[in-house]
């Protein structure tokens, strides 16, 4: 992050991408594409030809590919914000839980099961150093 | 405000606060709409019909049709929004101000060239009484 001489503590949280102003700028067009899916006309046009529709926004090739492949984790890394991405997976008829599960590498059943048992514990999940095995 | 609002004491001046903003919301949003060229054309074809689309008061509609700038300011119009209405007519801001001040364009221009309207005698409604 600009202006920080020491390691930014927000960057140390494992499996977590902070949607700050810089990421907002990087992901601007990706997120604005997602916004457009709030309108039915947008959704219909997207479904008719995804690649063509995506090219209306000056996003990067990487972002476009991540959308086409529905690589949710990658979209987050490339500046997508989950509330905007939700309009994309809603268009696909997918639930928040399905997408969340896919970003963790679990099946939806495994994820749902984890949630029913109290969710993912914070212990061992506070710092990237804890994820290094 | 439980006591008299000092802003109400300034003569010939309407403070555009949240209350006025609420009062004039649709009037001002109508004005905003004719910042767009296509809307302007549509408005000019049939002003009354265009105005009816906005749930403003009948008085606001009448004042727009009459171009009564002074009254529009008093009933919720904000000058920057109203400006779009007058620009659509091809009128300059100076001319609109002159009209509101009850002067001809020439009189207003002369006043401005001589240094503008002085605040002396124009600070309190009591001075205008």
């Amino acid at each position, binding site marked *: 992050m600009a*202006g920080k001489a020491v390691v930014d503590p927000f960057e140390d949280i494992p499996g977590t991408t902070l949607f700050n102003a810089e990421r907002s700028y990087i992901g601007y067009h990706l997120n604005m594409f997602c916004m457009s899916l709030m309108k039915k006309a947008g959704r219909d046009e997207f479904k008719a030809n995804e690649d063509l529709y995506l090219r209306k926004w000056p996003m990067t090739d990487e972002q476009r590919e991540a959308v086409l492949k529905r690589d949710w984790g990658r979209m987050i890394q490339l500046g997508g914000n989950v509330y905007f991405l939700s309009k994309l997976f809603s268009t696909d008829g997918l639930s928040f839980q399905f997408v969340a599960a896919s970003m963790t590498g679990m099946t939806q059943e495994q994820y749902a099961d984890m949630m029913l048992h109290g969710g993912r514990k914070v212990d061992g999940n506070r710092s990237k150093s804890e994820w290094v095995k | 405000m439980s006591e008299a609002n000092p802003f109400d004491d300034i003569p010939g001046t309407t403070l555009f606060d949240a209350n006025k903003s609420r009062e004039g919301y649709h009037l001002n949003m109508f004005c905003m709409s004719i910042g767009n060229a296509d809307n302007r054309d549509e408005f000019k074809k049939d002003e009354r019909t265009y105005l009816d689309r906005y749930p403003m008061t009948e008085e606001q509609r009448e004042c727009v049709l009459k171009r009564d700038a002074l009254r529009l300011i008093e009933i919720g119009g904000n000058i920057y929004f109203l400006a779009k209405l007058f620009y659509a007519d091809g009128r300059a801001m100076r001319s609109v101000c002159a009209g509101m001040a009850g002067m001809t364009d020439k009189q207003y221009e002369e006043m*401005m060239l001589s240094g*503008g309207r002085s605040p002396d005698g124009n600070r309190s409604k009591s001075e205008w009484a």
Partner: protein
Amino acid sequence: MAKIVASVNCSHVPAIGAAWDLGKTEQPYWQPVFKGFEYSKKWIADLKPDVVILVYNDHASAFSLEVIPTFALGTGAEFKPADEGWGPRPVPTVYGHPKLASHIAQSVILDEFDLTLVNKMDVDHGLTVPLTLMFGQPEEWPCKVIPLAVNVVQYPPPTGNRCYNLGKAIKKAVEEYPEDLRVVIFGTGGMSHQLQGKRAGLINKEWDNNFLDLLTHEPDKAAKIPFIEYVRETGSEGIEMVMWLVSRGALEDKVREKHRYYHVPASNTALGHLILENESFKG
């Protein structure tokens, strides 16, 4: 590290832009307006700022009454000149500095100021007229511009004190940005004017010039001027001068006045102009 070295204050009257665009600058009415900026154009050309933070107000262009942000910081990459009813002004697109703007946003919000961040907005005469006055008619603006739009359309605007403190927070943010950027901050709008009601045409030369003195030498006092005084003394639209406190707050306590100019009328408005440099700035 980046540093704000100077401030520029000036009016942003739309008619000034129109006069420039229509080639009327040599007409007897407009000549005295533009004369006041001859020094200024040379000063800023010599200074060569990398970034201008431009404090102004939108005039029902980017913001209607649907959204009324008190402070809107432009973090986008570019801002187009607004079509205010007669086509966009024929001036270059304004290019922002998203990295610095985002850095300022983060720092200032963490300093407990509440900002609205705007990635997409058109910029109207409030922003482009000061750029014309200071830079003339270049092919491209010679530096990046970070817009900071302040609500002065619907009462109440942020107080002078709030604006002043925001300026200080912006100064701190800029000084923590790790690139060596030379930054100038503009505070625009004013000076006395009233565009509405029977009191339209109000001008208060005495108050305006006193404000120029206070802003330079006693900004703490200038920051405490209550709104009733702005409106009563300088007109309903004179309240714009509260934005000049943002730019003053972003300078050090000790400043030197490089240039001052005042002229009536510029359309309905008293044209005021001030250039201040930090005393510590060695040029």
